[in-house]
């Protein structure tokens, strides 16, 4: 069965610090990978996604993620965080077929000190 692990439950950073949030998945076949963000009081929205091609993908608001197939990882990065990045971040995976369930990790709460 597919599963997604996010090892950091709560990360606290100061503004301008660099960010890396870990995500590992377990599934042997072709996968589509996503990072979603949930700002306080808002619904989940997509940050970025990977399905094929360049393993380094860029998303909105300066976020990027790198797919490393050999490590089953899809870590999220941002070189310099802002207070407005305070949110919960979820990694998700679907198998590479059309009628696939989407499995989420447990989420990482990011708090940015102004």
């Amino acid at each position, binding site marked *: 069965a597919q599963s997604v692990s*996010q090892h950091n*439950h709560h990360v606290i950073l100061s503004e301008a610090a660099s960010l890396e949030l870990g995500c590992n998945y377990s599934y042997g076949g072709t996968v*589509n990978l*996503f990072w*979603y963000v949930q700002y306080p009081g808002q*619904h*989940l*929205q*997509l940050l970025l*996604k990977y*399905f*094929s091609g360049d393993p380094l993908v860029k998303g909105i608001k300066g976020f990027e993620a790198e797919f490393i197939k050999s490590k089953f990882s899809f870590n999220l990065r941002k070189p310099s965080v802002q207070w407005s990045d305070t949110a919960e971040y*979820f990694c*998700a995976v*679907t198998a*590479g*077929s*059309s*009628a*696939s*369930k*989407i*499995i*989420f*990790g*447990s*989420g990482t709460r990011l708090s940015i000190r102004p």
Partner: protein
Amino acid sequence: DVKVTQSSRYLVKRTGEKVFLECVQDMDHENMFWYRQDPGLGLRLIYFSYDVKMKEKGDIPEGYSVSREKKERFSLILESASTNQTSMYLCASSSKTDSNTEAFFGQGTRLTVV
């Protein structure tokens, strides 16, 4: 603009009541999902549907059932609500014909069972 609409933002129900959570999407998506979101546990898949009248169990289906009579509508049913079903419930939809697209989420329904 993609829209996934959940019928209620907040619900309070009594133990033992039958509870219906409704979700409607306007993107003609084939796939629809119900998740519950709990602190520290992320989003856990309850059920998903990949076509009208088709459904598959997710990771935590016990105590829940679903109905998909029309493509745009996916209902979650708590047959006999219990206090451990107090949670935030999220509905999502995605395209089956384009497996590379992300899921779109509703605002969520915060259910409290007393």
